[in-house]
């Protein structure tokens, strides 16, 4: 993921979601609330309030940067790997499902590994794909990992080759440490 991509993606796109959200909430009752509260409130059960897109995109991008690290990739370990193997069968099956979700989210959106605190089928880990700015928060899950599949995330480096971008993300970028840390928090909150 090139410096050029990062400076556009973070320096322009992500920055403008922040700038635009600040303008939108100024002087309103949303001002002073936490970002997560703004997101949930403006999601408004799907009947989006204007500030939702900006608020959620700020959060989503913060989360995206945290989902990666230099020298990332490889496989998870410990409790995270155990749960992945329990809920997907194997790490390989999880990876396949995650890549497929990322590749098939039509238009703009995100793919996620998320924690479901109240699973009806006993599977706490789920792969989700969401359109535009929607994220697991508003669906009642705890996000653990995300990949941005808006074209602005990969077009400069990969053009239309989204599957190549997804492969590189999995092989070289994903920070399993960050995912494990988020899982610990999620399990503690669910307990």
């Amino acid at each position, binding site marked *: 993921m090139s410096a050029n991509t990062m400076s556009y993606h973070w320096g322009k796109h992500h920055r403008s979601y922040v700038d635009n959200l600040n303008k939108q909430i100024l002087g309103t009752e949303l001002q002073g609330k936490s970002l997560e509260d703004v997101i949930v409130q403006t999601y408004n059960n799907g009947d989006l309030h204007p500030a939702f897109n900006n608020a959620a995109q700020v959060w989503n991008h913060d989360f995206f940067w945290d989902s990666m690290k230099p020298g990332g990739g490889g496989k998870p370990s410990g409790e995270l790997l155990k749960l992945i193997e329990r809920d997907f069968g194997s790490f390989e099956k999880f990876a396949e499902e995650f890549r497929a979700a990322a590749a098939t989210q039509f*238009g703009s959106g995100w793919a996620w590994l998320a924690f479901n605190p109240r699973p009806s089928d006993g599977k706490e880990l789920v792969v989700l794909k969401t359109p535009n700015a929607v994220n697991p928060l508003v669906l009642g899950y705890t996000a653990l990992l995300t990949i941005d599949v808006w*074209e602005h995330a990969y*077009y400069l480096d990969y053009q239309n080759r989204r599957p190549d971008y997804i492969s590189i993300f999995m092989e070289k970028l994903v920070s399993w440490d960050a995912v494990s840390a988020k899982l610990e928090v999620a399990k503690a909150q669910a307990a």
Partner: protein
Amino acid sequence: MENYRGCFVGYAQASNLGRHYPCLLRCPSTMAAAATISPPCALLSYQGLRGALVSTRTFQSAKNQRQCGRAVAAPISAKFDLKPPPYPLDALEPHMSRDTISYHWGKHHRGYVENLNMQIVGTDLDGMSLEDIIILSYNKGDILPSFNNAAQIWNHDFFWESMVPNGGGKPSGDLLELIERDFGSFEKFSAKFRSAASTQFGSGWVWLAYKANRLNVGNAINPRPSDEDKKLVVVKSPNAVNPLVWDYLVSTIHRIAVCHCSLHIHRFI
């Protein structure tokens, strides 16, 4: 205007170099060996306007529309072709580079064609016109797998046709009259169109369309008419959605008028 039948294609936002390009009507033939052809926009004539095609008030029957295009034998396989833009890939420079068009048309648009062909082979969609596939697979909003590819083919065909080298400027004739009638002025329409294009969040399209007032029963009167019926409207749509599906009761005679600009990011990079 009440008896008006027909549709328009809009015009590009390219700069005006003062040259008139006669825009020849091409009746898009989107299937390799189609028994019938349903072009997305039944343009009846052109008036040599820079970048704009305007229909006359002459009524063109559905039968004539279907004759437009290649005469073909019975289909062996009903594969869709990737239709090229009606100008060379570098013809829109410096406003839209050859590079962009070769990616946008050559990879993205082509991908939709190839993927749709794979999806429909051996199914009951195989052999249907593109528009019929779109409307059927839109499935009143509960979209079926082939919708995205089919609609994106149609949308992109239309997008290339919405532009012309040295386009831009202003429309005239019937088109300008209707724009002034329904938006107040060309400038007001333009502001509305630009604003819609800037505010479509995520991927999508912006359109100039003609909103008819129809029901699916002949001679019925629409019990819920709106102020926008029988008017030009600016509308925006997400992802692959297009105005065809919002008025999916469109007959083969009436066509929705569209001019649109694509807001998927690949169009800009």
